[in-house]
C-alpha cells in the first residue's frame, strides 16, 4: 500500500527524523494561509501516488503567499500525468506547502527487503535527487549497502559505514547514524516494504533533512496497522481496481486491452494474459478469483466485465484445485441469470469436479463458446473479440 508524501513525512517526524516546516492544504486559501505562516520562500508540492512530479510541473517554488495561492489553484483539482502514471494521470486534491530549504548536498537513503539474502537492506548514496536505478546504472560504486540482521537490528557501525560512504564528516556521521537507526525502527514497527528518503539533504546549516519521502507498506501486514490502513487515498487508485476490491476480488489489475479474463491462480492468470497476446489480442485485465467456496466472486467478476466498457469478449480459464469447477460453473450460470451478458464468453474448464461443472453449464442452456484447452481458449477469445466468432 502507498501513502502520500505528507503522510510519510509525518511518520518520519514521529520517529525523530527532521523534515521541512510545512502543512498540507486542500484549497488555495489554505495554501495561502500556510505560506503566510511560514513567511519565507515556499515549495508547493502536488500530493499524488506517483513519482516524476517535478518534471511535469507538480512542484512549484514561490516567493509570496499570493504566488502560493496561484500555484495551489493551478494544481488542486487537476490531474497530473507523469512517467509513472497512465495517460489519464492521477487527481491532485491536496498540496504540501513547505518552507524552501537551502540545500548544500542531495543524498539518497532507503530500506527494503532483499529477496536474495532475505534480509532488510539499508542503501545509501551521495548521488541523491535522481532515481536510484539510474545511479545503479551510471555510478554503481556510489551505492553503499548494509544488510541488517533482524535479531540484533541496525547497528551503529553500519550507520558509520554508510555515512562515510556518502562522504559525510564530523558531527554529521553521528546525526546520520541516528537518523538511519530511527528509519529502521519505523520500517520494522510499521511493516514497511519500502522506506525511501530521496533526497536526504544536507542544508547550508549542515543539518540533515528529509526533503522527500516515500513509504510503502506490506499489504499482508496491514491487518495489524489500522493507523496505516486509514491513510489510504482511494482516489489515487484505478477506479476499476477499487471496484474489484469492494466486490471481494482482491487480485485485479487493469490492463490496456479489450479481452476480459477470469482465471484461478496468479501464475495461470498471468500466463493467460501472455497467451492472449501471443494469439494477437490484448487482455483488459488480470483477474485471479483465488479460492472460493461460493459463487459470489464469479458473479462479481462478470459485473466487473460489464462495468468495463472496453470489453469485447471474455475468457474464463479455470483449472480447479482448491477452487472447484462445479462452483465456478454455478457462478457463471447465476451471472447469466442476473444480467444481460452483451459479449461472447469463451469457457475452458479443467480439474476438480470437472464433470459436474460441465453438466451444470450444459443443462443451463446458456450460450457460450467452449474451449478444449488453454491455447484453444486464448485463440477463440481473440477471434471472438475481433468479431469473427459469435
Amino acid at each position: 500500500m502507498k501513502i502520500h508524501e505528507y503522510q510519510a513525512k509525518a511518520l518520519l517526524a514521529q520517529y525523530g527524523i527532521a523534515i521541512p516546516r510545512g502543512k498540507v492544504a486542500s484549497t488555495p486559501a489554505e495554501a495561502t494561509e500556510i505560506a503566510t505562516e511560514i513567511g519565507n520562500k515556499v515549495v508547493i508540492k502536488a500530493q499524488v501516488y506517483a513519482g516524476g512530479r517535478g518534471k511535469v510541473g507538480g512542484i512549484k517554488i514561490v516567493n509570496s503567499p499570493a504566488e502560493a495561492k496561484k500555484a495551489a489553484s493551478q494544481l488542486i483539482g487537476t490531474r497530473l500525468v507523469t512517467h509513472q502514471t497512465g495517460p489519464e494521470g492521477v487527481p491532485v486534491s491536496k498540496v504540501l506547502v513547505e518552507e524552501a530549504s537551502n540545500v548544500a548536498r542531495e543524498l539518497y537513503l532507503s530500506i527494503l527487503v532483499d529477496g536474495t539474502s532475505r534480509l532488510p537492506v539499508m542503501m545509501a548514496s551521495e548521488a541523491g535527487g535522481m532515481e536510484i536505478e539510474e545511479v545503479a546504472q551510471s555510478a554503481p560504486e556510489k551505492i553503499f549497502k548494509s544488510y541488517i540482521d533482524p535479531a540484533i537490528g541496525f547497528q551503529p557501525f553500519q550507520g558509520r559505514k554508510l555515512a562515510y560512504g556518502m562522504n559525510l564528516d564530523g558531527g554529521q556521521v553521528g546525526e546520520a547514524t541516528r537518523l538511519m537507526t530511527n528509519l529502521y525502527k519505523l520500517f520494522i514497527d510499521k511493516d514497511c516494504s519500502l522506506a525511501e528518503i530521496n533526497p536526504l539533504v544536507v542544508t547550508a546549516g549542515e543539518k540533515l533533512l528529509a526533503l522527500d519521502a516515500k513509504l510503502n507498506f506490506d499489504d499482508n501486514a496491514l491487518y495489524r496497522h489500522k493507523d496505516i490502513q486509514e491513510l489510504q487515498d482511494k482516489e489515487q487508485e484505478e477506479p476499476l481496481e477499487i471496484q474489484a476490491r469492494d466486490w471481494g476480488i482482491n487480485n485485479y489489475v487493469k490492463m490496456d486491452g479489450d479481452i476480459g479474463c477470469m482465471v484461478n491462480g496468479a501464475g495461470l492468470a498471468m500466463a493467460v494474459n501472455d497467451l492472449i497476446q501471443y494469439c494477437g489480442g490484448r487482455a483488459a485485465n488480470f483477474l485471479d478469483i483465488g479460492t472460493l467456496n461460493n459463487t459470489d466472486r464469479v458473479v462479481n467478476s462478470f459485473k466487473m466485465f460489464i462495468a468495463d466498457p472496453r470489453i469485447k469478449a471474455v475468457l474464463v480459464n479455470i483449472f480447479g484445485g482448491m477452487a472447484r469447477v462445479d462452483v465456478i460453473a454455478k457462478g457463471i450460470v447465476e451471472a447469466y441469470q442476473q444480467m444481460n451478458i452483451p459479449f461472447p464468453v469463451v469457457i475452458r474448464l479443467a480439474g476438480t469436479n470437472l464433470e459436474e461443472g460441465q453438466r451444470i453449464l450444459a443443462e443451463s442452456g446458456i450460450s457460450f463458446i467452449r474451449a478444449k484447452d488453454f491455447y484453444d481458449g486464448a485463440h477463440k477469445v481473440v477471434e471472438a473479440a475481433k468479431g469473427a466468432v459469435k
Partner: protein
Amino acid sequence: MSILVDKGTKLLVQGITGSEGSFHTRRCIEYGTKVVAGVTPGKGGSNHLGVPVFNTIEKAMAETGANASLMFVPPAFAADGILEAADAGIPLVVCITEGIPVLDMVRVHRYLKSKSTRLIGPNCPGVMSPGKCKAGIMVGEIHLPGSVGVISRSGTLTYDVVSQLTSLGIGQSTCVGIGGDALPGSTFVDILKLFQADQDTKAVVLIGEIGGTMEQEAAEFISHKMTKPVVAFVAGSTAPPGKRMGHAGAIITGSAGKASEKIKALSQAGATIAPTPAEVGLTTKKVLGSL
C-alpha cells in the same frame, strides 16, 4: 526415486482441524500419503479423520515419528508455526498459507539458518511425488509417476503444465511448488540441486514468473552445475511494471524483474524455453526425445 517426499514420508498436519486442513488432509490420505499426526493447540488427545491430534509438534514427533509437516495455519500465526516445527527439528515443512507478512518471514529465515529444517513455501501448492506421497493441495489425478522434475512459483499454472505432461505420457519424479511469495523458504536453485542429484530425474521443467531475481540465480546454477536438461517458461510477459500480479512476489520493480530478462538469462544458460505456457508439455517431449 524422487525428492523431498516419498513412501517413507510420515506426514504431520499443522492446523488439521481447520476447514482447509481437514479438506486437504482427507485428500492426501485418499492419495495414499501416510498422515501420522495432526497438531492443533488445545485439541491434543482427540482424533480427527482417524489421525491422532497433539497440542505440540514436539509431542507429535515423539509419539508418531513424523518426519515432515504440512501447514494450514492462518497467516497471522503461520510464522510461529514454522518456528515451532523448526525448533522441534522436523526435517521438512511445507507451508501452504498465503498472506504471511514479509517481516515475519525475515525473522523465520534468520532462525532457520541455525536449524536443519527445510522450508517449502509459503503460499505454495506443496510437494507431490506421484504414486508415492502427496504433501499439498494439488489435484492428485493429473499426475503420473515418471522422471521429469517440476519446480514452479505458481499453483494452477503448474497443474496445467503437469496435465500437459501427463497427457503426453510424460511422468513426473516430483513436483515442487516453491510458492508465490517474495521470500520463499526454498528457491529454484535449492530444488534444482536436489533434482540434479536425484538418479531418477532425467529432466526438469521450471515455471518462473516476474519479480525478484530467482530465475537469474537458477540460470547461473543451470549453466555451471546442471547436467540435466531444463525446460523453462516465465509467466508475466504482458504484466505492467509496478503492479502486483496476485502473488506477493510478482511485481516488476526493476529491469531484472521483467519476464524478458529472466527468459534471456535462462536461455543463455542453456535451458529450452517453451514459447507459450500451452507448449511446455510439447517442448519437454522434444527435449526428452533428443536425450
